């Protein structure tokens, strides 16, 4: 197994210095997701304003992959229109579930491309997706609350 494919420097950097971490006060929805298999946990809040992801704040516990993934999530979606953020979500999920066969699009996923290696480790895919699933859940809830357009509610996981 090629460890370095999994633990890319970008991932270890995000792990050591997570972006956007901490729970902030402005939010419409808060969710708590766990990975029952290993116990990784995340509490995540989403604040939507004018159809944009104004903030994603979170508190999480888990391995380097799950922590780095939350940090990358924050970087990729905060400030983006909800639609665009959902599209990024879809791309990231596709990459993760592609068993290492999907070529990541750096323009869309930026630092997220470092997770291409994770897709080859089936047991770790859930770690990488934990925060992303929580984000989608909270975003759909936020949109429901604020009545803001643009969210694809039917897609709710």
């Amino acid at each position, binding site marked *: 197994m090629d460890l370095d494919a999994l633990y890319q420097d970008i991932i270890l950097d995000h792990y050591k210095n997570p972006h956007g971490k901490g729970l902030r006060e402005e939010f419409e929805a808060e969710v708590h997701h*766990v990975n029952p298999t290993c116990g990784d*946990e995340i509490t995540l809040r989403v604040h939507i304003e004018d159809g944009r992801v104004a903030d994603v704040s979170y508190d999480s516990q888990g391995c380097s992959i799950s922590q780095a993934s939350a940090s990358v999530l924050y970087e990729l979606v905060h400030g983006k229109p909800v639609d665009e953020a959902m599209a990024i979500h879809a791309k990231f999920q596709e990459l993760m579930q592609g068993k290492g066969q999907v070529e990541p699009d750096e323009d869309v996923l930026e630092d997220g491309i470092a997770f291409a290696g994770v897709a080859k480790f089936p047991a770790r895919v859930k770690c990488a997706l934990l925060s992303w699933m929580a984000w989608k859940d909270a975003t759909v809830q936020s949109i429901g609350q604020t009545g803001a357009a643009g969210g694809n509610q039917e897609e709710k996981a």
Partner: protein
Amino acid sequence: MTAALSLPGLLSDLAVIRQDFPILERTLAGDRPLVYLDSANTSQKPQVVIDTMVDHLERHNANIARAMHQLGAEATEAFEAGRDKVAAFLGAPSRDEVIFTKNASEALNLVANVLAWKGPFQVGEGDDVVITEMEHHSNIVPWQLLSQRTGASLKWFGLTDGGELDLSNIDELITERTKVVAFTWVSNMLGTINPVAELTRRAHAVGALVVVDASQAAPQLPIDLSAMVPEERPDFVVFTGHKVVGPTGIGVLWGRGDLLEQLPPFLGGGEMIATVTMEKSTYAGIPHRFEAGTPPIVEAVGLGAAVEYLGHIGLDRIHAHEQAITAYALEGLQTIKGLTVMGPLDATQRGGAISFELEGVHPHDIAQVLDSRGVAVRAGHHCAKPAHQRFGVQASTRMSSYLYTTPAEIDALVEGLEYTRSYFKLG
């Protein structure tokens, strides 16, 4: 009678298929070749199922889900591939609707048990549960326990003299009070095939849940849940691994996903939780929510290989084979003086289990004499006492064939029955 090797419908590659089953080469006491006609009780196992299990144990054994090492990943993949194969076998709308239990009995009990607890489908006083007089005990006792424990009433479909469900009073049986209708797809005693679509439609019309025991159907009828229209698709379908050339220790509950999600938990423990604290626990999503503890891992791997094996041969072809053998057997049995077949006499309208009586000899004694000639059949109540009582008998003899059964084996049965008559000096 001579072996009719060219019966229409017979598996063309029967001789090759038989070679897949090592036990068929066994000789028994007295150097008799084995004539195994007890497949409705349990089926024999092809080499590929055994080998797949051995390979798993010798090379990939580990606990699943929780283990993140290489063996753990391999074991998890093999186990979940078993689920995929079972889902494909049933044509399940979603693989997550396939829950592994220890056998069909546990699957039926699971449903009956969780309906006793608080939730949107809780059964209680004033509610009816409807079953039939031809059920296997495993689809009777769980509902008796549920009604005793909740105060619900248990109602029964009766049987016609021909061994069919008596639907004449269906309007009195299936009413707004009905919460559950549970019945067998194919009777393990009478062979009767029940009208699943019609019964399900009627039950759904009053908002009842439908539980179908497919323990005898899954081995011999093609099942495609996705192809059923929702009104006619049962809510739960159950079968057991060991009757579909798979191992013991595993059964299957397929359930409608949205229902399963709303049911309270059955067994609690590892694997079925989302989180556990001293104050409270939350539960995982389906299917894991209903799979407490280490699941039957090597059994799921074996069952996957088993249903894949059946799929390769083709359920349509297996069904045709069963019908051909059943027709041939019904014909042969009826040549025997004093023998009465119970259940439908038209092979195209029934499954492959044939129960019969032979005047003047008790079923145990018949089975014993047949056994002395290597012919294995079942004698007794076949876990269907109410159905036996319905026909005024306490026990019967049952032959049951499967994809490896030959016409020559039916001949051996018929000859054995003639011998039984002479052994017991019946005129």
